């Protein structure tokens, strides 16, 4: 592995996979495990975790959200460090979740560039890639350029700047189905921006936005695929990710 290997061997990390990734994007979870283990962490998966309650809170179901939030905190009772490949679910834990859990929960890019002090994670991904900063990573968690620094260090990767990158893709959880027309108008502009880069891959720190952008790309047979950042960072020459 090329440089940047941190001296954090045997750091025990609990994976907060999120219900969404667990059910629909297990490949992202496998990639996080592969990546963190490669960087010397010991990863565990507390099985009582389900959902952080974000969808319920943002849809107006406050009591249900509070119950789920408490349950999530109990599931991670025995964890010192919690890492998740979802900026929006981490944002939910930070802003509305159990304060003690919030303190020890990290979004993946934050964790890599913060405690692990890694930028070059030894990845190889020979593709043309553009990065969409999701609203929750950009304006919620304020991860800044951490994802870009990680991507720039990936060997073989051709990083292309996304025009109007900071504009929302129009997902917004239940917004996408409660206001499908406005959501689609926002998505159209995002897809146009992605198309303008001529990238093969659009990546982000959240599969929810990527499901939206990717769903639009597939509908249009656009020739660009949506891949979570964790999968790019987990990819190596010997064990490439799609």
């Amino acid at each position, binding site marked *: 592995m090329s440089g940047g290997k941190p001296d954090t061997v045997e750091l025990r990390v609990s994976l907060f996979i999120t219900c969404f990734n667990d059910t629909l994007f297990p490949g992202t979870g496998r990639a996080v495990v592969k990546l963190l283990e490669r960087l010397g962490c010991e990863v565990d998966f507390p099985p009582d975790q389900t959902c952080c309650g974000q969808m319920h809170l943002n849809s107006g179901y406050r009591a249900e959200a509070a119950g789920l939030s408490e349950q999530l905190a109990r599931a991670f009772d025995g964890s010192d460090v919690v890492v998740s490949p979802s900026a929006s679910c981490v944002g939910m834990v930070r802003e509305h979740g159990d304060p003690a859990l919030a303190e020890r929960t990290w979004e993946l890019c934050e964790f890599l560039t913060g405690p692990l002090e890694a930028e070059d994670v030894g990845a190889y991904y020979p593709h043309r890639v553009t990065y969409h900063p999701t609203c929750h990573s950009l304006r919620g968690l304020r991860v800044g350029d951490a994802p870009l620094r990680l991507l720039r260090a990936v060997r073989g990767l051709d990083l292309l700047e996304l025009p109007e990158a900071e*504009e929302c893709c*129009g997902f917004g959880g*239940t917004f996408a189905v409660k206001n499908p027309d406005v959501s689609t108008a926002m998505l159209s502009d995002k897809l146009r921006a992605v198309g303008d880069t001529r990238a093969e891959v659009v990546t982000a720190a959240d599969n929810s936005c990527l499901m939206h952008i990717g769903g639009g790309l597939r509908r249009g047979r656009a020739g660009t695929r949506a891949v979570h950042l964790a999968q790019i960072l987990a990819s190596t020459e010997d064990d490439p990710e799609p």
Partner: protein
Amino acid sequence: MTAGFPVAAKKALADTQLRRNLGHATRTIRDKRAGVVGEVADWEQLREAGQAIKDEALARLPELLEQLEGSVQAAGGQVHWARDGAEANAAVAAVAKQHGVDEVVKVKSITTDETKLNDALAAEGIGAVETDLAELIVQLDNDSPSHILVPAIHRNRAEIRDLFRRKLGATDLSDDPAALTAVAREHLRRKFLEARMGVSGANFGVAETGTVSVVESEGNGRMCTTLPEVLVTVMGIEKVLPRWRDLEVFLQLLPRSSTGERMNPYTSLWSGVRAGDGPQEFHLVLLDNGRTDVLADAVGRQSLRCIRCSACLNVCPVYARAGGHAYESVYPGPIGAILAPQLARLEDSQTLPFASSLCGACADVCPVKIDIPEVLVHLRGEVVDRKGTDAEAVAMRALAGVFGDRKRYERAQSLARAGRSPLGRGLAKRLPGPIAAWTSSRELPEVPEQTFRQWWKETR
């Protein structure tokens, strides 16, 4: 009766001219604002000062309003208290009648749009002439404003030329902005010189000195506040500031946030009346119209900090595509989505708190740091609490039950995988409601053969 945001927005989205006009205009103002805000080293401290002053004013509201009343009266003005729009409109109409006035000139004012003052005056036989150029355009077209600061943002030059040709008799008019402005100027100058009564809103009212302020770009507002014999100002009670020196903060925050200018061209300040100079009679109408109810709500009250700069509209991806009319309220955009449901009955605008992807761009630019997404989510909770049990509530509560227990959650995951069969997928595509709303423009993700937790269990 309103159509609701999703329906109204769908109609607006189909208007390609509107999309182009809005996209161009919001992007221009957004970039200008970013430029002039970026050059202020202590912008964050200014925002914090703005928030602190507004919070102080709201916490001391009854006391400050009585102080304002006293200082306006001491300076020779008269003060009227209006519980709602009807009382405010009646106060304005009474002054007009007292002076036998049948036409008033108006400074651009959203507060008087909120009270529907023009309609109320018309019912009393009194004409109201909008003198802000964009408000005039909207009025001549029997249209309604679609932006707080730029009411005719949905119109472009060619459309305005056609309107002026029709309504102001300006044949042979080109779409050159200078030519368009010259026609409006000629029309308005006559109105200014004839007018005996002016009506304005207020950006600020200073309790300490009794000074009322209007901030504008064109100077037409100042014509209305200085030429007529009588001036009536309708001011929302949340516009009160404790001290004269507080203006220092807001006169920096407002122009940079609204028009993207370092300083606005015209800042008018007046305290009561002065013999031989300007209007000889001044009335201040203090309007509640739901504001004290907003103040009583611990989360919602931050909405009353709003100084109507409209920076949140210009950065909002929803507003930039749907436009202001889709909000069906005089307060459009992100601030409208929280103000309209709070000032009026929530039941009448219950789709507005959901008219946002919660992207947070509005909160980042707000000069008085209103956490608009926080208030939106709070209002969504209020809507759900009041609506009773419908299909969505049943589904959401059932889903919370599934997520609430690991065993039920894992069983539900197995069922989702069963839906991977061609039969299951075919069925899903025909389902009404949320799935159809999604698949109208986006593919559904493939449900994988194995969940993450199954993989973990099998390999660890």
